[in-house]
């Protein structure tokens, strides 16, 4: 069966085809499609197994490790910053091993396009001492996933599949087959020296790990190279950079000038084998997407040129254009100067009708420029556009940053400044709970607004622990945010629909009073279903007409600036604001933003 699959979809096919029956993770661009595809495949082929989102990457990693220890082929998927969250179990699982096989799928985001960092997860594989293999195309993503699982199972060691945005979001026609639903046997073999190892045994496990990695480094296929062309300049490469280089050589007729040596497994690298190949070359370039993991392992630099010698830029994505520039700079390609045409820039914005926008508007009405606004990771990062977000750091940091700001202002500030933290529902579950415990326990007067749209919206509407049905379609028990908050000892909790502007404003005022009076956190849950989800849009308030009364509009742009809905468009010629009917969902939330009551609704 030939399908047109993305790299992420291909990984799911490869893993399930090789017998993986347990898959967990946390959504994050560019990794989010792997798990939903695994769920689709398991349904379509009636494969037994468990495939579902977890509350965060650390938890997911531990769940998958346990499944693997019990003998079940498993995978865990996350984006690169998710692996930071999972570092603790990641390091430990490397030592203890994964008897049933465990594939760690990590999608890196050089650029970055939709991440806080452009870190290279291959370095974390190196750090934990687990093998990492790196596909260059969706077709390879399918094949390499199978090979990753086989390697993991054979050596009882987690194996990383490292993909990048361009591989994850490329598509290719791929011949796939899932095979039979082979019976799977769960079998936890008790071994406390291994699975409950004390430090003494950890030393022995480390020794075993070193032994494993030494053998893996010389394994056939994994330590082999793909070699193309026959020129005098050698380029060592891997991953997507290999695919780019291959195309550049073909398109520019460089077959006689360069030779490509493609590494399949960047760690552990068989350095001797590479040195054998590089001996006869005077000029060797290393071009790899991310950090110089291959380059650094090569040791004595000699004739090697790459990121460490400044020939390859040390930050940013190695796009095909960037690689062409490198080759021009070193004289392999003739340089061509061409002015680059860029697409017109459009600032990203919360969707028209998004409840978060109304919530941010209410927050700004109450706290103006007086508060410090700590934000978080998700759609609501775009509260930036309403000047209601001052910091965005990492998952859950809105709460801990809020705590930190409040403490230092309480102690060192001339005036006591309110601190308003905003966090999404899924991010709150992911890592907002522990810092809220700190805030309660240590008398922080933080005002925390949980913007609850009951979905992981930014990454494509995945399910959250508050949902009644999981991503897999299975019935799940909803965990209520207000119950969690109450159980932590928060005394001030209000739940409000984010379309209730007056209600939110009075809640926020009360919250401020409570927090300052008691030096305790106040939590507000502003809830409104995501209008980007089919269900949310279908059930949303919908007026017959939302329009600007042109005679009343003064063209002051207050609505455009303060409410910032993309459907409010200022026409410079007519000096009036108009509503873009193609994008407006007729929710009428913008009405409050006009100081001249020019925005009207018709029921």
């Amino acid at each position, binding site marked *: 069966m030939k399908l047109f699959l993305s790299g992420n979809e291909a990984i799911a096919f490869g893993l399930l085809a090789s017998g993986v029956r347990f898959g967990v993770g946390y959504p994050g661009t560019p990794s989010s499609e792997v798990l939903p595809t695994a769920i689709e495949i398991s349904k379509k082929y009636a494969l037994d197994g468990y495939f579902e989102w977890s509350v965060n990457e650390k938890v997911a990693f531990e769940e998958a490790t346990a499944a693997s220890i019990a003998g079940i082929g498993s995978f865990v998927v996350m984006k690169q910053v998710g692996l930071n969250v999972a570092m603790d179990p990641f390091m430990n699982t490397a030592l203890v091993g994964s008897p049933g096989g465990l594939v760690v799928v990590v999608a890196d985001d050089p650029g970055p396009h939709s991440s806080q960092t452009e870190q290279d997860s291959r370095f974390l594989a190196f750090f934990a001492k687990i093998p990492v293999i790196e596909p260059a195309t969706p077709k390879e993503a399918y094949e390499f996933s199978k090979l990753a699982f086989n390697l993991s199972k054979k050596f009882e060691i987690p194996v990383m599949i490292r993909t990048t945005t361009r591989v994850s979001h490329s598509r290719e026609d791929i011949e796939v087959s899932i095979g039979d639903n082979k019976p799977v046997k769960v079998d936890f073999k008790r071994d406390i020296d291994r699975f409950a190892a004390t430090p003494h045994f950890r030393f022995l496990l480390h020794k075993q790990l070193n032994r494993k990695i030494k053998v893996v480094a010389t394994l056939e296929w994994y330590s082999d190279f793909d070699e193309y062309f026959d020129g005098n300049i050698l380029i060592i490469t891997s991953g997507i950079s290999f695919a780019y280089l291959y195309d550049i050589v073909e398109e520019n007729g460089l077959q006689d000038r360069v030779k490509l040596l493609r590494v399949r497994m960047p760690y552990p690298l068989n350095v001797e084998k590479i040195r054998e190949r590089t001996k006869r070359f005077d000029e060797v370039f290393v071009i790899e997407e991310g950090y110089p993991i291959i380059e650094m392992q090569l040791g004595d630099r000699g004739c090697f040129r790459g990121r460490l010698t400044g020939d390859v830029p040390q930050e940013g994505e190695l796009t095909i254009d960037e690689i062409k520039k490198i080759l021009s700079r070193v004289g392999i390609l003739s340089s061509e100067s061409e002015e680059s045409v860029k697409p017109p820039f459009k600032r990203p914005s919360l*969707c028209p009708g998004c409840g978060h926008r109304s919530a941010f508007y209410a927050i700004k009405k109450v706290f103006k420029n007086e508060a410090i606004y700590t934000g978080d990771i998700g759609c609501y990062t*775009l509260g930036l556009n309403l000047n209601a977000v001052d910091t965005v750091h990492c998952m859950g940091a809105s709460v801990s940053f809020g705590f930190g700001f409040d403490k230092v202002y309480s102690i060192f500030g001339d005036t006591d400044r309110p601190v308003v933290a905003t966090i999404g529902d899924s991010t709150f579950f992911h890592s907002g709970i522990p810092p809220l415990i700190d805030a309660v326990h240590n008398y922080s007067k933080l005002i925390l607004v949980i913007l609850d749209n009951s979905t992981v919206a930014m990454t494509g509407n995945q399910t959250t622990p508050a949902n009644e049905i999981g991503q897999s379609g299975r019935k799940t028990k909803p965990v209520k945010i207000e119950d969690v908050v109450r159980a932590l000892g928060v005394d001030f909790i209000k739940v409000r629909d984010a379309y209730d502007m007056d209600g939110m404003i009075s809640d926020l005022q009360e919250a401020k009073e409570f927090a300052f009076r008691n030096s305790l956190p106040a939590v507000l849950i502003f809830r409104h279903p995501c209008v980007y989800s089919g269900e949310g849009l279908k059930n949303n308030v919908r007026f017959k007409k939302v329009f600007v009364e042109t005679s009343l509009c003064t063209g002051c742009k207050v609505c455009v600036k303060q409410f910032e809905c993309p459907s409010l468009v200022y026409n410079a010629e007519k000096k009036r604001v108009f509503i873009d009917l193609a994008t407006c969902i007729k929710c009428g939330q913008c009405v409050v933003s006009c100081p001249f009551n020019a925005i009207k609704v018709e029921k």
Partner: protein
Amino acid sequence: MRLVILGVGGMGAITLSKIIAQMCIDKGIPVRSSEIHGMAKKGGLVEIQMKIGEGKSGVVLKKTADFAIVLDESYKDYARSYLKDSEKGLIVLTEKDKLWAVNQFGDVRFANAFLLGRFIKSQSVFDKDDALSVLEQFKFFDKNKISFERGLS
């Protein structure tokens, strides 16, 4: 053949690329694409580059594309920068055609079938029947067929 498809989030540009890819698979022609849709959901650009019957990556470089299909007129100049010959191969969904699809079917996404028709008319690798047999597998075939045939005419 190399082509790029440019649209904004939610318009169905990716579906259009999948239809073209399915025509390739049906004919046994290797096909690969590269999608860029970072913040597309938030009103941004969706960019799909496709290589049909060539290459290892789906990436298409500036000044090398045979066709550029544009679903939003504001990206016309950007689309032209991809073309081998800036006078040839540009397929644009004009405001007029967009409104026609919206008025006729109530959903702008039916304009994709119209663009598919224009694409089929502009090249010789795929013919009308190749396209129809793929469209058949999609929902609302009758509506898509009307839109497609308008593109062909």
